[in-house]
């Protein structure tokens, strides 16, 4: 005979609007084994939790059902309250009558009937719950950071400064990310390189940071506190220990005409190269696709000229395995490729803008390289077509952003500000030039941001035209911009020397594949999803994995740095403990019935199933059975569904419990 308490929550009006909560409580009171019921406006609040604790004491409750929101939201809250009241927390369950009921139904009577059903099922389940004890697991106090842009660098430095070990993995040959490509930064116009490169040096010199550049994540296994990560270090063809970074190999390489992607293909680099002079590490890589040695087996100039003998053509990809306790994902963004629509893409192209066919139509990042002192033109703003100084430049905002008809409905957040910055940089370098900006809205929330934007109009004389651009075309050596000015209701045509498109911010190519390796979720655009949009903005729903920077959504530098430090703080909180408590919802094998077919091992996604030999006292083998390692088991229940002899069950989700829940309907 059990004594169960049912606590029905109104969730403000979220539940009570569609569900008659008083009726649910009254009906629950009639169920066999229910000793107490009540309803309350906010069960998760302090008075609500006290209600629960008091009821446990007064009515000697042995099990608790909280009919409220999803267990993902507040299961932990109420289990803690149960624990405080002296009830084993695993005898407390949530009946989800919000997400599964009130939010998705309109008819009050039907919703109430369904809520009663849900509560009835959970009562049957709690009756059969066992008292479970949490499993403790050790924490590996070492963090993995994926991505070496400003987000990854900031997280890495913060965690390393707190005394913990950090492994930083970067796909490109150098860390620095997009911020290293920028010229000057809003809203203060300080030089990006000047604030970025010292941080890059700090990373490489930090005793607690292990840096893997030109490397990618191959596979991730394990769980919070105990991840095993395989990192593929791509063959650099240069021995990092021997190379002094003198640069003779780059100077002597006969292949000099390879477009430099760091400069948005405006400049050239050799086949053995560092992406930019301030690269960290300052060790070149050989681009094997373009290297004459790798293509024809002839040349070998770089090896001949290398004093320390660091060039090694035989180097192969290397797999490094790292044990870490936490992961910060900071893979950043890329700009929307604005050519014609790619085949099979859900996102329409912008063929009508002629990007890729009209040389003087460029994107914002290309303009950054033109304006950068370390860029291909040394900071002189010229047109790509003929190298002339453009006297009129048209900037177009929201290319791909906020464009539902093209497939992207979100705002890219940074373009209003960087376009305002571009107009200033342009005016500072071409005094007699005129900048025009086509914009939908100027979105400038941020400290000093609106003042900055006003300055571009009032002091730097940029002409802002509210309206969209429909088409760009080449006419002689000009690019004609056809657009509209919605303020005065006319069509506008501007003949420009250069057109700069503020294209949408998208997650990095391959963001979805990485998410699948990590087991984290992402939205339809492949931005990674945080656990809660407001209250857990840097954590993933997957424990132990944190987010920093534009991989989670478009972000500027100050926001990125804030989020990166927040992610680092979360990692430090985790590392402050020596052991973690894990939910004991794990599979257990009934060794009496297990026949050792190990079908469970084939389906286990966590690799938690092992073979176990059962021997008699004299050591003779009786049989082989399956054994589930509770430290590794993720509690998914796949083995339970697979087992032909029904000998493996998940605690809290036994067949008996599930059948009882179904029968209760």
């Amino acid at each position: 005979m059990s004594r169960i308490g049912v606590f029905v929550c109104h969730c403000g009006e979220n539940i009570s609007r569609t569900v008659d909560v008083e009726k649910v409580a009254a009906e629950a009171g009639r169920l066999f084994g229910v000793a107490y019921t009540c309803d309350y406006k906010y069960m998760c609040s302090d008075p609500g939790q006290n209600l629960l604790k008091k009821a446990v004491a007064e009515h000697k409750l042995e099990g608790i059902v909280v009919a409220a929101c999803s267990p993902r939201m507040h299961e932990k809250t109420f289990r803690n309250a149960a624990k405080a009241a002296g009830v084993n927390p695993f005898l407390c369950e949530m009946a989800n009558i919000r997400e599964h009921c009130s939010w998705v139904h309109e008819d009050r009577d039907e919703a109430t009937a369904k809520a009663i059903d849900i509560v009835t099922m959970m009562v049957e389940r709690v009756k059969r719950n066992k008292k479970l004890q949490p499993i403790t697991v050790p924490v590996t106090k070492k963090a993995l950071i994926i991505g070496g842009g400003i987000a990854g660098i900031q997280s890495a430095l913060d965690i390393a400064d707190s005394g913990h070990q950090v492994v930083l993995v970067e796909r490109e040959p150098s860390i620095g990310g997009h911020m290293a490509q920028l010229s000057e930064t809003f809203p203060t116009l300080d030089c990006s390189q000047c604030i970025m490169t010292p941080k890059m040096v700090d990373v490489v010199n930090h005793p607690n940071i292990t840096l893997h550049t030109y490397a990618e994540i191959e596979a991730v296994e394990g769980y919070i506190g105990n991840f095993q990560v395989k990192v593929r270090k791509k063959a650099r063809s240069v021995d990092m220990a021997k190379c002094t970074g003198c640069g003779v190999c780059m100077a002597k390489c006969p292949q000099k005409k390879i477009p430099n992607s760091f400069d948005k293909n405006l400049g050239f680099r050799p086949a053995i190269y560092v992406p930019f002079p301030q690269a960290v590490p300052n060790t070149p890589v050989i681009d094997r696709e373009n290297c004459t040695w790798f293509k024809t087996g002839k040349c070998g100039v770089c090896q001949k000229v290398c004093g320390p003998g660091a060039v090694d053509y035989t180097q192969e990809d290397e797999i490094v395995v790292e044990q870490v306790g936490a992961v910060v994902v900071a893979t950043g963004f890329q700009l929307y490729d604005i050519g014609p629509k790619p085949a099979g893409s859900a996102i329409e192209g912008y063929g009508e803008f002629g990007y890729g066919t009209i040389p003087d139509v460029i994107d914002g990042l290309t303009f950054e390289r033109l304006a950068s002192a370390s860029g291909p033109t040394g900071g002189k703003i010229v047109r790509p077509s003929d190298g002339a100084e453009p006297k009129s430049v048209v900037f177009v905002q929201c290319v791909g952003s906020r464009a539902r008809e093209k497939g992207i409905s979100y705002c890219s957040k940074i373009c209003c500000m960087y376009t305002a910055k571009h107009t200033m940089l342009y005016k500072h370098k071409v005094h007699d030039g005129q900048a025009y900006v086509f914009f939908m809205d100027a979105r400038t929330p941020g400290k000093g941001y609106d003042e900055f934007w006003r300055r571009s109009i009032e002091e730097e004389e940029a002409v802002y035209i509210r309206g969209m651009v429909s088409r760009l075309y080449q006419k002689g050596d000009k690019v004609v911009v056809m657009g509209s000015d919605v303020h005065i209701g006319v069509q506008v045509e501007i003949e420009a020397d250069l057109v700069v498109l503020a294209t949408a911010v998208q997650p990095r190519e391959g963001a979805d594949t990485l998410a699948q390796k990590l087991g984290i979720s992402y939205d339809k655009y492949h931005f990674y999803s945080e656990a809660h949009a407001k209250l857990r903005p840097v954590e993933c729903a997957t424990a132990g994995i944190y987010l920093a920077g534009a991989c989670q959504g478009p972000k500027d530098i100050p926001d990125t740095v804030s989020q990166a430090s927040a992610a680092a703080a979360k990692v430090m909180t985790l590392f402050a403990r020596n052991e973690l408590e894990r939910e004991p919802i794990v599979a257990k094998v009934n060794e009496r019935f297990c026949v050792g077919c190990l079908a469970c091992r084939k389906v286990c996604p966590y690799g938690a199933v092992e073979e176990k030999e059962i021997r008699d006292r004299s050591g003779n083998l009786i049989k082989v059975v399956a054994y589930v390692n509770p430290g590794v088991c993720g509690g998914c229940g796949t083995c339970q569904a697979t087992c032909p002899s029904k000998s493996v069950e998940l605690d809290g989700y036994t067949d008996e419990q599930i059948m009882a829940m179904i029968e209760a309907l």
Partner: protein
Amino acid sequence: MTPAKNILNYSYYPGCSLHASAKEYDESTRGLFKALKIGLHEVPDWLCCGATPAHNVDELLSLSLCAKNLELSNQVDGDLAVACAACFSRLKVTQHRLAENEEKRHQVAYALDAPLALDKPVKHLLEILATDFGLDRLAAAVQKPLSGLKVACYYGCLLTRPPDVPELDDCEDPSIMERVIGATGAETVSWSHRMECCGANFTLSRPGVVLKLSGEILASAKRGGADCIMVACPLCHGNLDIRQKEIEEASGRHYGMPVFYMTQLLALAAGVSTSKLGFGSMMVSPVSLLKEKGLL
């Protein structure tokens, strides 16, 4: 391609213009389909699609006219082939709007006093030629290659817009006309104004607007190096062809740019007799151009 696909058969909605000012579009369409051995059977008793005026003054009228036409089209087998860009747009828009709005469906059914039958696939000639018939077969059917003829393909406003409706091609950067005429060996030019408005119905109420907008289209085609313009819309044709002399007078520029319906050029390439292509009813005569290119 499966053998069954080789026998193509369509119901045909010509629309008012093709029985009047755009007779040559109708004639050349029939000629082309006959030459390509594609069946084309006119829907009996079809009505006006309502064109621009109907949907400007009364949406229910506009939807009902097209819904009636779709119902009538079921008398004839085969997907519904449409030549006129405006008719195509109205029929497609009607299917789209009624599919997404139950209330409007009820209103239209009430207005027609009959259950709705909207499911007949509506296809523009371009889609039939490019997809159903296929560009390879089209190229194989060419008897008189148009090589050397530089064609500016003009889409106008309605063929591909609004973005979610016609599903013919990329809304702002299409290539279907270029691909279709390219199959005849003609050279297509790259030009700026192929998607701009010609001025449309303003040709009657404010011709000055048309002279300006259509003038820019002609200037752009000339700049692109075109010998002629190819259209799929009777109204665009009227503005670019009939108004061309006035445009020349107003702008002081000479264009002499023949404006063909797409089927006139395609039928010419497919070997249809020139007497059946209605070249005589074009205001800007194409004769000297076609002679120069050895096509007449």
